[in-house]
């Protein structure tokens, strides 16, 4: 084995609305603020196509995920002198339909066209210290998403029965106390018996949501393009890559998920300036629980010359403070060269918006 390549990447993903906050200490650790600690992302954070292209991540498996209204991602905020700097990579991913019409979106309207609301756009930029600038745009849609509880009739029926039960208890209290215009009725306004009954129902619902399957079937389609400029003004900006992904996730019991992915791209050759096609396919098997899992993946990339092969393994864990850590190490073969070790470390933090 000729070399060991460690691709250290620390990134922050901000889910839900913007204005979320985090702090980064001198040693590069990212700590969520008090608001952030209130929210722990339930499921692993999906990859945004634009960010994947920006990072030149050639992985054929684009991690799928259920739609979020807004997500942002930053990385490379530790400078060469090991001090903190403004992030050199920044990406956002959002669902335009949810952002525009989310507050008036009824459940039945969502169910009539879930693909529209699951469609996400992403954009990413990178600036380098030597004046090089890159930007990418991405689009992703989940054609199948069984993780999405708003399209699960059994869940919705059970949930609606429960909310009807809670509402009935509050209504009993309202009838007894009469109208108090402008006043909210809260749990503390209920009699002890009613309050206990409502709390019991809420606990039941929390358990139901927690127990949903992290590995439910999902099918994601994504595409994106990347461009570069050799200066900061963007005058010499030109497209350098187009890519498309197809990822299918299949769950096994409560313990596993197999992701099958394919990626095809046209990338500009840095010497000739001509576009050349590249295709890759891979499979990744996750085993464990939602909070802690290990994975094993293999993938191959077919090029005009020097095909690449990768065998990789690692783990993923949800952090107590909220967020996820992903790590992996493996072996890569390029053409007839000897194998080389590769590694990666990714930190993703989901925080609650305001």
């Amino acid at each position, binding site marked *: 084995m000729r070399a060991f390549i460690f691709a250290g990447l620390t990134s922050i993903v901000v*889910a*839900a*609305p913007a204005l979320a906050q985090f702090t980064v200490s001198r040693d590069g650790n990212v700590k969520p603020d008090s608001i952030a600690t*209130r*929210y722990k992302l*339930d*499921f692993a954070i999906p990859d945004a196509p634009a960010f994947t292209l920006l990072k030149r991540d050639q992985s054929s498996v684009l991690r799928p995920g*259920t*739609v*979020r*209204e807004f997500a942002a991602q930053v990385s490379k905020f530790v400078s060469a002198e090991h001090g903190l700097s403004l992030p050199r990579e920044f990406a956002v991913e959002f669902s335009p339909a*949810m952002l525009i019409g*989310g*507050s*008036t*979106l*009824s*459940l*039945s*309207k*969502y*169910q009539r066209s879930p693909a529209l*609301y699951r469609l996400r756009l992403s954009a990413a930029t990178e600036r380098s210290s030597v004046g090089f600038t890159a930007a990418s745009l991405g689009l992703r849609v989940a054609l199948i998403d069984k993780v*999405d*509880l*708003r399209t699960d009739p059994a*869940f*919705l*029926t059970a*949930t*609606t029965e*429960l*909310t*009807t039960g*809670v*509402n*009935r208890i*509050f*209504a009993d209290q*309202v*009838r007894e106390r*009469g*109208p108090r*215009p*402008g*006043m*909210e*009725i*809260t749990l503390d306004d209920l009699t002890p018996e009613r309050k206990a009954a*409502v709390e019991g*129902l*809420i606990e039941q*619902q*929390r358990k*139901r*949501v*927690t127990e949903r399957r992290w590995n439910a079937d999902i099918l994601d389609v994504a595409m994106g393009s990347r461009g570069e400029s050799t200066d900061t003004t963007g005058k010499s900006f030109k497209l350098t890559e187009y890519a498309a992904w197809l990822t299918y996730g299949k769950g096994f019991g409560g313990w596993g998920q197999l992701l099958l992915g394919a990626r095809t791209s046209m990338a500009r050759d840095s010497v000739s300036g001509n576009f050349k096609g590249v295709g890759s396919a891979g499979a990744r098997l996750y085993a464990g629980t939602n909070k802690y899992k290990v994975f094993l993946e293999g993938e191959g990339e077919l090029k005009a010359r020097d095909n690449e092969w990768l065998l990789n393994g690692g783990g993923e864990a949800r952090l107590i403070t909220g967020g996820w850590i992903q790590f992996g190490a493996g072996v890569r073969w390029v053409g007839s060269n000897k194998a080389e070790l590769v590694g990666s470390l990714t930190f993703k933090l989901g925080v*609650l*918006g*305001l």
Partner: protein
Amino acid sequence: MAKKKKKPAQKTAPAKPADTQAKDQAVAMATAANVPTARFDPAGGPLSAQVSSGFAQPGSYTLFLWELNENTIVMEKAGNFLNSDDDEYQLPGTNAQQDGRYAQALVTVAITPPELHYAVALSVIQDGKTLATDLKSGTGTAGDVITRTLWVLSAAQ
């Protein structure tokens, strides 16, 4: 003897009927309590109340219509958001009877991830036009069950 000048008769506003006073009081109270007021046309079409839940959050509601200055429930309807087509209710009685009535909605939503926002609303509608809306919105955590109270006062123009 100098003639005493007659004092001009003190002008007083004509006494309002008791129900008008009560309505004015209700409007003042609604304004103070930040309750939206639906100013309706007495000669227009019938009023209706609509309950809704945004961000595709599932849930249930109870809609009350309270008589002016009484602990009397004129109408009570319960429903859910599985189907949004049946969440609008015509208010019973004539338009004149709606003057000063409060609509109250208790709305319970279950925060269903990945969406953690909710927005619930109660609107009073006349002839297809929304006259007033009480909207409560916020963010919860996955699995939360949240109950909010919404109010709209109906008052003739």
